[in-house]
């Protein structure tokens, strides 16, 4: 009888727990004025930029509090996601530093999503891969920005939402690709100074509505 009573109490406890509000999140990626709505890119100056992969974490926090459930993995292939969160919330690009340091988490943060480095521990905040075609050459690029050890690679605060019904993440890749192209940087796959520098251009290109 005691067991049943405890069971009923547990059910009551679960039923009163707040589950937060469902928020519809949408990624809108672009290269300057050109919208990227497929896995391929659009004309960019005299070159053509093909974006094969854009995949990144957003994490949200309410009153400064976050949790693994408040992380979201957006990509060109899966540009729409929903999360549950209460009230006004802050939005960050990347994985919360405490969660990143803490270890491995479930859901969007499951390493099966291929957003965790294995040769060196730490979540990858953002992956951008593709190539640039111009008259003389085809240069592929691969940028994996993340890790837990340098603060300059993220996560970055990118906005605050107060209505809490929807979230549009606008990500203009032009600043990052322009910087990489000008500086002849086409591959960043580990944390460090150059990764930190590239991260600043991701930060420049991202806003939330």
């Amino acid at each position, binding site marked *: 009888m005691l067991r049943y009573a405890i*069971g009923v109490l547990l059910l009551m406890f679960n039923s009163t727990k707040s589950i937060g509000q469902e928020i519809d999140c949408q990624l809108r990626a672009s290269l300057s004025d050109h919208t990227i709505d497929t896995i391929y890119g659009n004309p960019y100056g005299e070159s053509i930029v093909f974006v094969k992969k854009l995949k990144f974490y957003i994490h949200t926090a309410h009153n400064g509090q976050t949790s693994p459930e408040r992380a979201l993995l957006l990509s060109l292939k899966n540009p729409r996601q929903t999360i549950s969160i209460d009230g006004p919330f802050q939005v960050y690009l990347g994985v919360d530093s405490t969660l990143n340091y803490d270890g491995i988490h479930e859901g969007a943060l*499951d390493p*099966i999503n*291929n957003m*965790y480095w*294995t*040769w060196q*521990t730490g979540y990858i905040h953002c992956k951008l891969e593709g190539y640039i075609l111009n008259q003389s050459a085809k240069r592929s690029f691969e940028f994996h920005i993340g890790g837990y050890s340098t603060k300059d690679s993220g996560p970055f605060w990118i906005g605050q939402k107060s209505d809490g019904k929807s979230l549009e993440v606008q990500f203009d890749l032009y600043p990052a690709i322009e910087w990489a192209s000008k500086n002849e940087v086409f591959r960043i796959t580990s944390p460090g100074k150059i990764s930190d520098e590239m991260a600043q251009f991701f930060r420049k290109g991202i806003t939330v509505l």
Partner: protein
Amino acid sequence: MKSVITLSFLLLTLWSFQSTIPYNRNIPDHFPAPKSERISNLDSHTVELGRVLFFDPQFSADQLVSCASCHSPYHSFAHTDHRLSHGAFDSIGRRNAPALFNLAWQEIFMHDGAAHNLQAQSLAPLTSATEMATTLNHIQTIMNTNILYLNLFREAFGTEPTIPKALEALEAFQLSLISVESKYDRVQNGIEKFTDQELEGFKVFEENCANCHPPPLFSTYEFASNGLPIDSNLFDLGRYEQTRKDGDSMQFKVPSLRNLRYTYPYMHDGRFNSLRKVLDHYSPRNGNMGNSPLKTPIAEDDKSDLIAFLKTLNDPNFIFNPNHQFPKWTLTNNAIQNEN
């Protein structure tokens, strides 16, 4: 009311299925507090799941290599008599597999400190092309389709298998590997005494080795260069490969000196087969100290005394602890069931 009672019963059934049994730890008084907070919450079911995962070769790309292939319990979870570790499809890595014990007192893992977290560390050997060469999707598929793992995950976590939970279980098993029952420990507890030679060796040790290998863990677990020249084939720059800082070149994590009897060959690339050769590196017989971190040579007689002391750090109870060995009943029965 009837449905509430039914639901309550269902909940309690699940609750009792995922019963928590604290893992019994034995940490002596002369040890410092562990760095890992997770060790205080170890659960026997999670440790057992971690043990089965650790010994199961199904997860590697060729289904022949498990974690235990390079981290054998009988070798203090190192790969004795193998200079460099073997991996799937007969591949060979470029480092000597480190022994695994007392990980709860460590905050950074692997020879170059590539992993800051023990739960996440397992991802490196699982996916490395020269180790288990597997994918997380492959691991997930095996766990989802194998009744053994479905049951073990329910017992440990009350959930279906997931990669994060598997990593948590592997971490739990590795945290349970505690080596604290050497002769040195019994001397500290007043149960035994050193012989005269061991006592002389302890003095030599304190003068020459204890800075980097302080008792009772016998390591600072920090990074240091011990003056070894680089192997021109392996070209392993150690800690530098993670930090890209010039000062970290050729620095490697200081290993513990416990259980040396079981863990030869020594050094990050297994270049020395015997303790005598290790000591000859630190203090060459010709007296030319070269790049040695030691200031003064160690006399040959003192080296013998030092080795006698180092032998007191071996812990046969740890090596032959049945809780650390191949889970024969579980994995053998599972293999038979799968064949049928």
